[in-house]
């Protein structure tokens, strides 16, 4: 079947929108990490700097899956691998 270019671009835009839904996971994960870090600081305020740096490191790693979704969206929008 032949599709015209506009149809493919429109579908790519919808796909890009769907791809960035991947951001939900890291959002929840980072929130949980920050919540537990806040609890840890509340229990042991002396370890605040250690807890903060560990939390930031973990959050930055957890962010990766969301960024994969962002990359797919970028590819669909700007590289346009499906358009002819």
């Amino acid at each position, binding site marked *: 079947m032949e599709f015209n270019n506009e149809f493919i671009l429109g579908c790519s*835009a919808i796909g890009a929108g769907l791809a960035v839904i991947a951001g939900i996971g890291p959002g929840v994960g980072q929130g949980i990490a920050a919540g537990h870090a806040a609890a840890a600081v509340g229990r042991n305020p002396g370890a605040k700097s250690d807890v903060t740096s560990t939390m*930031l490191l973990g959050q*930055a790693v957890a962010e990766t899956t969301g960024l994969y979704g962002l990359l797919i969206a970028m590819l669909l929008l700007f590289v346009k691998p499906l358009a002819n």
Partner: protein
Amino acid sequence: MGQGILLSAGADIDFMVHGIFSYELFGQTVWITTTHVCVLIVFLLLGTFALIANRTMRHASDVPTGFQNVVELIVEMLDSMIKASMGSSAAKFANYIGTIFIFILVSNISGLFGLRPPTADYGVTLALGLITFTLIHFNKFKYQKVSGVIKGLCDPWPIWAPINMIGDVAVPISLSLRLFANVLSGTVMMALVYGLLKWVAVFWPAVLHVYFDLFSGAIQTYVFCMLTMTYISDAIGEQ
């Protein structure tokens, strides 16, 4: 460019890598792009800094003053960071980790100075990831010997070897994609703010610069170096 964005902003939005000139090499067209220029600028900046630092440290005094203070502060911070996560083998890798730390940090925050950050090009980050990959496996073979590597590959049972192998290959890809996507998202976001809002984007984008360039850039530099060190000390194993 996506057509939707093009329609609403004209040709102002620009966050792509551009070719400057091309030449033929063994039948392949090779492009010199803006990324090369930005890497060159970062390299010249760091090289000049290193030369001045070298000259200063040659006439170093016991009581540091001025520029010597700055150099000692940087070296001490890097050393303590590497020592904290690599322990006894820190001295061997301080050179490499320190170098990539400074390079990635300056690359990431070069967006502040109007450059397109070199790390927002997958070619740069993949190269960094591949260096890490090489280091991991070189040290694995050096310290665990071939028998140890095979034992690690067939970890629970030999049938898991293909999955472990995929896990090994995924390390440089995930390392480089993480850095690339973070810096790229910042670059795209800033280009959208400046391109779509035009004269509305006066002064207040500084806040976004602080987050996307400084904070995110520094965090991702730290994460890249931490993960590199973790993987390498994992490969070295117990001494």
